[in-house]
Each structure stands twice: as C-alpha cells, then as structure tokens.
C-alpha cells in the first residue's frame, strides 16, 4: 500500500480542480435550493451551456477566448429564463421533474448527431483553452516547474497549468461567496428566504414571487456556469455526458453535506465530498491492487464510491438534513 500517494492525492483533492468546479457550481445551487427553496435539478445544464458556449465560440466560430466567456454567461442567463418561465409557477416536485427534463434536453441536443458540426456529438469539443493558458502567470511570469510544498514526507505539488486553474477557481469561489453573503443580508435576499418559508405570505405583501424566483434562478445559474467554464478550461474539453443529471445530484449532496442556506456550506461540502471520495477510492484501489481485497476489481471500486455517495445522501437527509453547518429551521425540505 502506497500511503504517501494516497495521502498526497487526498490532501490535494481538498483544493483541487474538481473541488473548485463543483464547489462554485454548488454555490449557485445553494442560491436556488438553500436560499430560495427552488428544487432545481438541472444545475448541470447551466454548467453545460457555459462550457459549450465557450467551446463553440472559440473552436467553431474562431472568436477570442473572452468573447467565449461572454457567450457562455449569456447562454446561462438565457437558459435560466427559458427554464424559469414554464417552471417557476409550479409546485416543488413538478419543478424538480421539469428542470431535470430541461437539463436532459440540453444534454441530448449537445450529444446529438444532427448538431455534430456545432457541438461535436458525444465526443464534445476540445482545443478552446489556449487563450486561458496564454495568460497563465504561473507558466510565463513565475518560472517554477511545479507549485506546492512537502508536508513532511508527503509531496503536495501542482503543475503550472493546474495551479492556474485552481488559483482562478478559488478567486471565483471567493467572489461568489462574497456576492452571496452580501446579497443574502440585503432586503432582496430576505425576500428570497421569505419565499422559501412561505410563498403565499410574500405574495400577500405585494412582492412578485415569480420575478424574485427568476432573479434567483438567473443568479444561481450564472454562478453555476462558472463551474462549467472551470471544467472546460481545466480539462481543455467539454463532453455532453459530463453535464448529466448525476452531476446535479452530486452537487445536491455537497450542498446538503456542508449545510444548505450557509455561505460556505457548499464549499466545505465540496471539499469534504472530494476528500472522502478520493480517500475511499485511493485506499480501496490500492487494497485491490495489493491483493488485500479479492472480491472486487478496480472498476467495481469506482462504482462502489458512487454507492457511498448515494448512501451518504440518504443518511444525511434522514439523520442530519441541515448538514454540518446548517440550521434545521432553514432547510426547505417540507412540502408546500
């Protein structure tokens, strides 16, 4: 058993690319689910349209990188409007079904043969991240070959490209957390929380519930789209199936794990989620490789960790729906 590698990958995953991209998208989901009580099951689609918006603008249309970011953001706003208009009048469970359906439509269109010229079919698009890495200060300004430090015997190093992605990702997380923190303390944020608690009461106070829900959907969708950009840039590609329904469910697990309706809940949730996942996978895969576990192979270990995610989600909601930092009174899990 190579414990050094296991500990190193586990510790790195606490701040790594996946943590960052899921974390920032989960902050967006927290605006929907945690603060407004919107059961949006289509968050992955916001990541998808953003990633594809960037990819298609740069690769197919040949426009510069920053235009692609703009197109991705506009696409996320448009998706929020498109998805919101039919769904925001609906009761929570209908909203969930329709947002899933909407996200599936987006994914199926991305992977369809009919639009292969634009979206690249099930292989997706690649080769759009050069503009991002061209301004990588960790490669062009600083000259270290890798960034990090040794924690005793455990090396914790990232390549310049990874460092740049992670740096940008954490800056975005800090910005998103700041925006959420300030907005939710404002009168606007109080209306959102009031909608979560009692929609009819808010309506009777003369507020347009639909309009507030729509603003919340757009805000959370735009924050979620940042996760899509980070995915596309970090892996230099986008594939349709990455933005499937399960991605959304993992984000729900993170939000609930950290604590819904808490500014840092999704971030902590994402860190814990990936640390646990990487640790479990590392230990089990090594144990299989070393022959300590003989009843399963490495592929099955990969599936086993998603079973643990499901089990974790079930147990959390039964025994601690408020997660680690949440407040039980602030969780929108009762039907209205």
């Amino acid at each position, binding site marked *: 058993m190579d414990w050094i590698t296991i500990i190193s990958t586990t510790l790195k995953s606490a701040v790594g690319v996946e943590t960052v991209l899921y974390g920032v998208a989960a902050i967006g989901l927290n605006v929907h689910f945690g603060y407004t009580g919107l059961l949006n099951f289509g968050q992955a689609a916001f990541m998808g349209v953003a990633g594809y918006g960037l990819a298609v603008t740069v690769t197919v249309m040949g426009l510069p990188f920053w235009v692609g970011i703009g197109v991705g953001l506009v696409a996320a706003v448009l998706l929020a409007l498109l998805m919101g208009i039919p769904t925001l009048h609906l009761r929570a*469970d209908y909203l969930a079904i329709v947002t899933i359906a909407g996200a599936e439509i987006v994914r199926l269109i991305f992977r369809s043969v009919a639009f292969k010229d634009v979206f690249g079919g099930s292989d997706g698009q690649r080769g759009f991240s050069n503009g991002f890495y061209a301004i990588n200060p960790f490669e062009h300004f600083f000259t270290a070959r890798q960034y990090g430090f040794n924690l005793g015997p455990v090396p914790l190093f990232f390549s310049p490209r990874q460092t740049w992605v992670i740096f940008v990702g954490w800056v975005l997380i800090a910005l998103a957390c700041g925006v959420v923190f300030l907005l939710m303390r404002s009168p606007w944020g109080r209306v959102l929380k009031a909608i979560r608690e009692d929609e009819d009461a808010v309506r009777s106070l003369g507020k347009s519930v639909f309009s507030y829900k729509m603003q919340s959907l757009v805000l959370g969708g735009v924050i979620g789209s940042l996760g899509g950009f980070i995915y596309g840039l970090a892996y230099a590609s986008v594939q349709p199936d990455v933005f499937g329904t399960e991605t959304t469910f993992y984000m729900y697990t993170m939000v609930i794990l950290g604590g819904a309706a808490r500014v840092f809940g999704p971030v902590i949730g994402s860190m814990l989620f990936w640390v646990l996942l990487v640790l479990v996978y590392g230990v089990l895969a090594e144990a299989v490789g070393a022959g300590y576990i003989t009843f399963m192979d490495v592929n099955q270990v990969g599936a086993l960790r998603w079973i643990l995610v*499901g089990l974790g*989600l079930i147990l959390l909601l039964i025994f601690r729906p408020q997660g680690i930092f949440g407040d039980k009174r602030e969780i929108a*899990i009762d039907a209205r």
Partner: protein
Amino acid sequence: MRRAVIAFTAFLGGLIFLLAGPAHADPADCQGLRGTLKLQGQPVNGAKIAVTTESGQPVKEVTTNAQGTWDVPVDKPGKYKVTLDVSTLPQNAEVRGGNNVRTPTVYKGNCSSVLFALQPKGAPGQEQQQDSGGQTSMWEQAAQLAFEGLNLGLIIALAALGLSLIYGTTGLTNFSHGELVTLGAILAYAFNVGIGLHLIPAGIIAVIVAGVLGYLQDRLFWGWLRKRGTGIIAMMIISIGLALVLRYAFLIFFGGQTEAYAQYVAQPGIQLGPISAAPKNLVAMGIELAVLIVVGIALLRTRTGKAARAVADNPALAASSGINVDRVIRIVWTMGGAIAALAGVMLGLSQTLKYTMGQDILLLIFAGVTLGGLGTAFGALVGSLVVGLFIQVSTLWVPPELKNVGALAVLIIVLLVRPQGILGRRERIG
C-alpha cells in the same frame, strides 16, 4: 429506528447477494481495442478489421469470430486507426453513415470499444428496432412506428402506473422507480442466464421477487420514514440517493455491458399488413395490456382498489372512514414493485439489458405520469401511451437520437398549458 436502518441495509445486502449470480468482471489488465459487429441483432462473422497506428504503421489485422467480436491488444496508449473492410461484410450489410474508418484513442490500461453500426443495404440512415427495409411509403412507415410506439408506451405505462399510485397514496415523487424497472430486468436475467431457467418462469419469479422487495422496501424504509415525519421533499432527495445506490450496485454485479436474455433474442419479423413485428413483441404487448386491464379493473371493482383510490384522493378522509391507509400503501408498493419489474422484463425483451436502462426511461415515465395527471392511475396509462406513440412517430420528422427531446418538450408544454394533465383534476399545482 436503528433497527430499521440495519434491516434496510440487510435488504440491500440480500439484493446484492441475489444479483451476485451472473456477476462477472471485466479483465482489468486490458489495453487495446475491441468491438462487436452485429447486423439487426445477429453477430457478423468473418469481417476483416485492420488496426494501424495514427501514422499508418500496421498493428494487426483480425476477423470477427462467431459472436461477432474482435479484439486487438496494443502495446502503447495513443491514437489508432481502425478500418473495417467493407467487402468482407455480408452481401446485404453496410456501415451506417458509410464511414468505415474510426480513430479511437487507447488509454493506459484500458480497452476502448470501437463501434461500427451496421444496417441492411438500402435502409434509411436511421435507427429502427425492426427495420422494414427497402423503400416504404410514409404511411407504412408511420404505421410501423405507431406499432413500436405502442410497444414502448405499454412498457412505460406499466412503470408509470406504479409510480403514479405511489405518488397518489404517499406523496412521494420516487426517483428510484427507474431502478425498480432495472431490478426486474436484472432479476429475470439472473434466473434466466445465471440459473438457467427458461425466460418465462424466470420472468414470473423475477416479478414475484420484485413484488416482495417492493413490500419490504415500504415496510422497512419508506414506511419508517413516514412515521419519522420526514418531509416530502427530503424523501424525494432520499429516493435520488437510493437510485444512485441501486444503480451502481447493478453496475458492480451486472457490469457495464449490454446483455440479452437467453431466449427470444433475434426473431424474424412477421408481416401484419403494413407492420413487421417480431412475435415476441406481440406476445409481450398482449401480456402488458392484460396486466394493465386487470390492474385497472382491480382499482375500479375490488375493495382494496377502491381503498387505494380513496387514499390517493384524500388520505386523511380515507383514514377517518375506516380504511387502513398503511395497509393500502403496502399493497400499492408491492404491486408497484411487481409491475415495474414486469416493465423491466419486457423492456429487456424488446431492447437489451443495461444497468442504466431504468434510469434511461425514468424521465419518459415521468412524462407519461405528468401528461396523464400526477396521482391518477388511468391518467398514467393514457399519458404513457401518448408519450410512447409520440416518441416513435416523431422520428418521421426528427432525428432518432432527438426523439426523447420531443417527449420531454411535450412534458414541459403540458405543464404550461394544462398542469393537471389530461385526466387530472384542477388543484394547486403552481
């Protein structure tokens, strides 16, 4: 409380044990390219496939075996070029799309599957379950597609009925219902291929076992959650967690590949007017229709059926008029589990088995249920048939891989225009 958790874990463990029969592992130390050539479900033997590196250095030339499979191990990861020799294909076959070269990438320690989709010569360049072949008129095609749509719609209806009744009686939007469908299909596979029973008794046993598991699921898990006072939304998210657990348990014990039952795999179609249909589909549709009618009559005529509808209508009122609500819910879960399993067996029969098969039709089930009106039993039937028909017939105009998009779009539009569905009553939905 804790006991119930332990019991549910034991139930899952038992499930896993049951599924352990047909388990088989992919070789982990595989690095190369492989694939299977099939024409209308039949393996293609003796087709030549040449593998070269990206720059054109030949690696190996192979021919497919009697199962239609081929396998080329390679030393180095990287991009390869795979060429299918079209002249070695059977006379009547051609590669869909006409392109016989693929450029897959082999990753370290991984086998990449290379797909060559074959179709009979002269068929339109689109996917169809039973290919009517040749040039057919629009109306013949429409009739054929309508038949396939009915086939799909009946399967969706079976699954939707259980989902709708469970929703009606407990308020739970069960996202793990798709996995109950998969469960039925995989149980039948375990009895059929694993133990060696004929598919018919295997299917019957699978449906019974799934019914028992449905009962236990409510008895040990959902019933316990209801008693604890877990909120409806929390239960909905719990059902998502359960779906993840079940789906990946299927992946572990069933594997990621597609499989077929031992019997009735490839049947030559018989011609009925403009429709060409495999006899198995006709029988399957007959069984599905019979089950739906029996359940429908049971809902209308029997005491339990009436009680179930009463609970769905208003649980508090039903309880105060002397109906044992918990008992009704148990029966609904048992029936729901059993008929979802039947849907799975039928889906596995008319298509193939995969661990995601239930997940793949879950949204169609939701579409059917919503279209008919959430919580109404007969609405689920009508809605599902409409969805099935719509999906297949729409392939006359839309590319087949986008056919589900149409159905999901209809789901959204229905909620905009008539949120209570076709047969639902008007109440607060928004």
